[in-house]
């Protein structure tokens, strides 16, 4: 084909557009993954959590979370007798390195792992002025860091304190439910390393997922149900003192 000056003028812009995609690279292949066939959630079995902090460490490593910020963390509750409204709660360094022993004064102690609740009606996505944070068709709330303004309105709007401003990128950040892993058939980093199986990734659209049996046979709650956010992280054995 002979390249005339006129044809070149037509081809150049097309080549420029194509080059943009060459530079951006191709997305990692997940050929068999169908977005609309999944609706991701997580199950946290509180009685099983031993507060070892493996999940926090694995998350930080997998997702390059900056020191002092947390995509997931563990809280230790101490409730003495009937004082359910005034629990003592601590989370030293997000529970990353476990917890020091607690003096036994007759109360109860338990650990509560926290992460983004990937709410179906999330207030964070509602308030984002440019739609940089959004819910995917498979039910995961994500942040597009190439688009986020860093206004931090979403951080204010999250009732669970799950978001932070990454000081390296100056954009909002939070748990992505290891989207890069789950779309390839893997589980999340935190679930992968949990030694007791206290955290289980679950697909609510998959009828064979064991979560359905679990939800049917256990008393399960979500955090702050009065916020009506459609939270999708389910807690088994959660005490009324948990916030």
């Amino acid at each position, binding site marked *: 084909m002979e390249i005339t000056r006129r044809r070149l003028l037509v081809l150049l812009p097309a080549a420029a557009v194509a080059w943009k995609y060459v530079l951006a690279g191709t997305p990692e292949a997940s050929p068999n993954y169908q977005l609309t066939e999944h609706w991701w959630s997580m199950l946290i079995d509180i009685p099983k959590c031993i507060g070892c902090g493996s999940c926090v460490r694995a998350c930080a490593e997998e997702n390059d979370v900056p020191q002092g910020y947390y995509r997931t963390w563990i809280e230790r509750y101490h409730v003495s007798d009937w004082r359910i409204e005034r629990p003592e709660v601590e989370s030293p360094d997000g529970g990353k390195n476990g917890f020091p022993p607690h003096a036994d004064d007759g109360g109860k102690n338990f650990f509560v792992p926290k992460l983004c609740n990937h709410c179906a009606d999330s207030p964070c996505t509602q308030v984002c002025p440019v739609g940089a944070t959004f819910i995917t068709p498979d039910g995961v709330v994500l942040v597009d860091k190439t688009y986020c303004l860093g206004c931090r309105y979403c951080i204010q709007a999250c009732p669970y*304190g799950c978001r932070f401003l990454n000081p390296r990128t100056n954009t909002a950040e939070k748990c992505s439910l290891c989207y890069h892993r789950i779309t390839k058939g893997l589980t999340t980093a935190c679930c992968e390393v949990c030694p007791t199986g206290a955290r289980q990734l679950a697909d609510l659209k998959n009828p064979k997922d064991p979560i359905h049996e679990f939800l049917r046979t256990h008393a399960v709650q979500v955090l702050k149900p009065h916020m009506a956010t459609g939270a999708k992280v389910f807690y088994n054995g959660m005490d009324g003192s948990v916030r």
Partner: protein
Amino acid sequence: MQIPVEGFMYPNEVELQWSVLIVLYPFITGLVAGAFILASLERVFRVEAVKPTYRLALLTALAFMLVAPLPLQLHLGHPERSLEMYLTPHRSSAMAMFGFVYLWYLMAVLLLEIWLDYRHDIVVLSQTERGWKRLVYRVLTLGSSNVSERALRIDERLGYFITLIGIPSAFLLHGYVGFIFGSVKANPWWSSPLMPIVFIFSAMVSGISAVMLLYMFSTRLRRREIDMRCVDTIARYLLYTFIIDFSLEMLDLIHRIYEADESFRSLDFMVHTRLWMSQVIVQILLGTVAPIALLGLTQFLRFSDLARKGIYVLAGCLTMIGIFAMRWNVVIGGQLFSKSFLGYTTYKMSFATREGLLTAIALMILPFVILWVLVKLLPPWPESASLPGSGAAPAHGAS
């Protein structure tokens, strides 16, 4: 930097997200809305007594309006992406609409009204001034140099119409700011349907008070006599608006205390400790009760002109401090407690950083510099209006 924490905060909550710059934002937009509403008193509601402040109020609104987006811009993690709010706005976001409300108010209301009001002066100045000033005025005429009787009548009618649209627009501008906070259901300190209304009335209070002070200072600087009928009227409107504002805030407070929901104990503790000085002492006692009492006194007792001027300046300054404290307590106070209601963090204001005290001070000085330029370019005082004797109250005593 270690941030002192009391009790338990969710780990990501320890650091405050919205700094003193976000305190300035509602403070500045409040001044814009309030100043405009004062201007509309004369234009729409025919309160002739406040006429000497009409143009000054419009220019004050413009000067602050031009600065209003700067604190937001400086606060963004990626200011270079801020235009995306216009290009790809997220329709469910209250914040996304800011750009449009701002543009509407700036372009369709303020600039147009000021231009129409000054058009005759601009045309005259473009013919009488020399050098670069002539060029500036010629540009400002926008090519329209018709100052016939008929053209001026159209200007007047159009100006009236724009002010008419401007009043709900001013309410929208600041009500919207209140909505940004009031609609955050995750934060009980902010979440209240009263928030937009409280913001609107506090905006009117701050704007009226700012224009009253500016009028008094500028008149004194120009060695003219203060039109006491004008400031008496403004002070009266300030008092009325302040009483409504205070009543709304107290209604909100009483409602919270009586209802005492799950957040109450935490918020109550915060008000009695970290916010005691800024909320109870500065905002409520010094910044609200004291100016209302001072302004109320002038309605019941007879004071000399000199005493009234002193009272108005004192009440005006206290009002400005009180409204600033109110913005501070809303923005900063709303981030000091944990959403777990089990702990409190601390706000450490930096000094010479992008979001520090120095920047905040510079941003508060900037509108006055802009106002000075605007006043030089478009003098807001027709001398006849600034002279006393045009109304009921005789103006004796020193100015």
